[in-house]
């Protein structure tokens, strides 16, 4: 057992080394100095308290999305529609805040309601994908992708149509909310809100407990491993799949609501910022382990924030972060396959 864990760790380090190797080749191909690029990413993520706080700001939605995905992955579902679920969460939260802006509610209550609305929005969108899958036979990958496009269209329509800024509508989004409705941050000017950090930690902890220690989690795992066998054991598989979508949608919607209330204070066109897709990669790399997922998400968030320096300092595209993340997950998957094949060969034949 210990030997196996050691092998896993070694393969993980190997994947990281190979990913760095590929990224270095890519940088050389672009005639860019690799060491300076990596140094700038590190500096951009850890160089000051401000940028380190920004890493946490981007960690929050990523962790919320990832914890939702851990639920759907456990059920054996590929919830690519999570991008749309985040977007719908943001839209619903914006709608709630716009509606409550005039009302004389205590701000804490209004923000709380906005979070609830965001969660409802994400859940609604996730259940739509789930219903398409269970009742319409549309694979959740394609139903989810389609709904991602629909959510983008809906978002842009709202920003340029009914919710446009007085005067001229623009890509910069809707009118910012009243300052009293911004989630309070650590320091003036900072975007790091302790409340959103707490929500992210609560989200991942909840999912950890749910999947690790609950009867629901156990049965969800059974459904994910083998839906037919689960059905024979008397587990209503369809209901569990829908429940998984619901859980993921709630967390994804919360991520969208956080982006609106704590980070942008308004609705912007690309509000999901790709956190959903990135979360899918985090969940894969963490092999569905919640604590590991939180760490991987921190690393990925640091890469994202750090790479913002690349276009400014080195005139390189910031998509280098995506190249690093993507090749890391790719080599991890390839390594995992190689390790499993080696293990089989050693044991002589397949298990």
């Amino acid at each position, binding site marked *: 057992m210990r030997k196996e864990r050691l092998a896993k760790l070694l393969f993980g380090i190997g994947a990281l080394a190979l990913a760095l190797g590929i990224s270095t080749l*890519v940088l050389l191909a*672009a005639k860019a100095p690799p060491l300076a690029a990596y140094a700038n990413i590190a500096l951009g993520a850890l160089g000051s308290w401000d940028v380190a706080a920004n890493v946490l700001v981007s960690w929050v939605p990523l962790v919320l999305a990832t914890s939702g995905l851990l639920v759907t992955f456990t059920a054996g579902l590929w919830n690519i529609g999570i991008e749309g679920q985040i977007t719908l969460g943001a839209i619903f939260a914006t709608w709630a805040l716009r509606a409550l802006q005039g009302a004389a509610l205590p701000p804490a209550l209004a923000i709380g309601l906005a979070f609830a609305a965001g969660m409802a929005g994400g859940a609604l969108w996730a259940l739509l994908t789930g219903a398409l899958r269970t009742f319409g036979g549309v694979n959740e990958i394609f139903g989810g992708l389609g709904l991602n496009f*629909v959510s983008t269209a809906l978002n842009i329509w709202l920003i340029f149509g009914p919710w446009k800024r007085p005067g001229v509508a623009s890509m910069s989004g809707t009118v910012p909310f009243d300052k009293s409705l911004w989630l309070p941050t650590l320091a003036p000017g900072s975007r790091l809100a302790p409340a959103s950090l707490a929500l992210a930690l609560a989200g991942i902890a909840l999912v950890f407990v749910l999947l690790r220690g609950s009867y629901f989690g156990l049965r969800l795992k059974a459904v994910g491993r083998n839906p037919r066998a689960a059905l024979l054991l008397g587990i209503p598989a369809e209901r569990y799949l829908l429940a998984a979508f619901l859980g993921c949608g709630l967390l994804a919607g919360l991520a969208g609501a956080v982006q609106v209330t704590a980070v942008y204070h308004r609705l912007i066109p690309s509000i999901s910022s790709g956190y959903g*897709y990135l979360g899918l990669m985090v969940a*894969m790399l963490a092999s569905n382990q919640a604590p590991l997922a939180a760490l991987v998400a921190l690393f990925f968030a640091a890469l994202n924030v750090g790479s913002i320096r690349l276009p400014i300092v080195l005139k*390189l*595209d910031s998509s280098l972060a995506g190249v690093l993340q993507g090749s890391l997950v*790719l080599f991890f998957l390839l390594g*995992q*396959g190689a390790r499993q094949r080696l293990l089989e060969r050693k044991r002589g034949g397949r298990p």
Partner: protein
Amino acid sequence: MTGDVLIVNLAGLLASAAPLIFAVIGETISERAGVINLSMNGMILLSAMGSFSVALATGSLAAGFLAGAAIGALVALVVAAAGISLRQSQVAVGFVLALLCRDLSYFLGNPVMGQVGPRLPPAPIPLLAGLPVAGPLLFRQDLMTYLSLLLVAGAWLFLFKTRPGLVLRGIGEKPEAAYARGARVKALRYLYTVLGGAIAGLAGPIYSLSVKAGWKGSISGLDGLGWIVLSITIFGGWKPFRAAFGCYLFALLQWLGLVLQPLLPGLPSQVLQVAPFPLMILTLLLVNLGKAEWVERSLATLPGPARRRLSRVLRALNATPPAALGTPFEED
């Protein structure tokens, strides 16, 4: 709209569907052999960027197109190795490649962004190009548009009228049976995944060297098309002609979006641009509806003639994937 304008627009439709056809037929071949290549979205971007860079550097269109096919084949090879030999989830590897290739294309494409490169010229066919109606519609296209039409017919002939085509379908449908009859399932799956990838890889240069010439990074308007390619493959029921119909339908919807724009001033242009995507999902729903149990049950309550007619429609729309799609196969 006069007849001439209509013909020009229809001819444009044939050309703008050409890259989709290459991608969808490539994916259809791969999936028929049992391997789902989910990397399409990033792969098309990477092959569009790569082939544009190569064509720009060498001044040769042929080199550009070759580069596009090579990139498609290489990405497919990774999917094949991971899925067939290492038995990892084809969906997982394909998805990661879709994101990785997209970011690679944006990063590496930075220096060539916005440059003017070579462009595939129209190649009117002598004599035929002078025909009324058919001339401007069919025979004044460029080389790749002609090839897209031939590709559909060729793929159909190969899949359904030849012995290797029968074996190809066999390894995606019942690999054990095909193996028992002497087919080298793994090697053939490698072959058809890479071949399908190379064909689909041509979609990139058709965009960047012809239909949407140039490379404009993240605003190239190509992001998302690869996902549509995958849904058209399903809509096409893994049959070349039906798949081609799906491509033309999508191109038509996109064109309608452009035409309707001035008529609907209240609607932001971005909304109409993405409208075809959800519509494709709606068609997927129709394609799958006939298989759902509750549909069968509610059909049974209808009176006879109506039930028969409705179930015939649903059956005609129905599409069943290759039975062994996405699953690994072990030869022993």
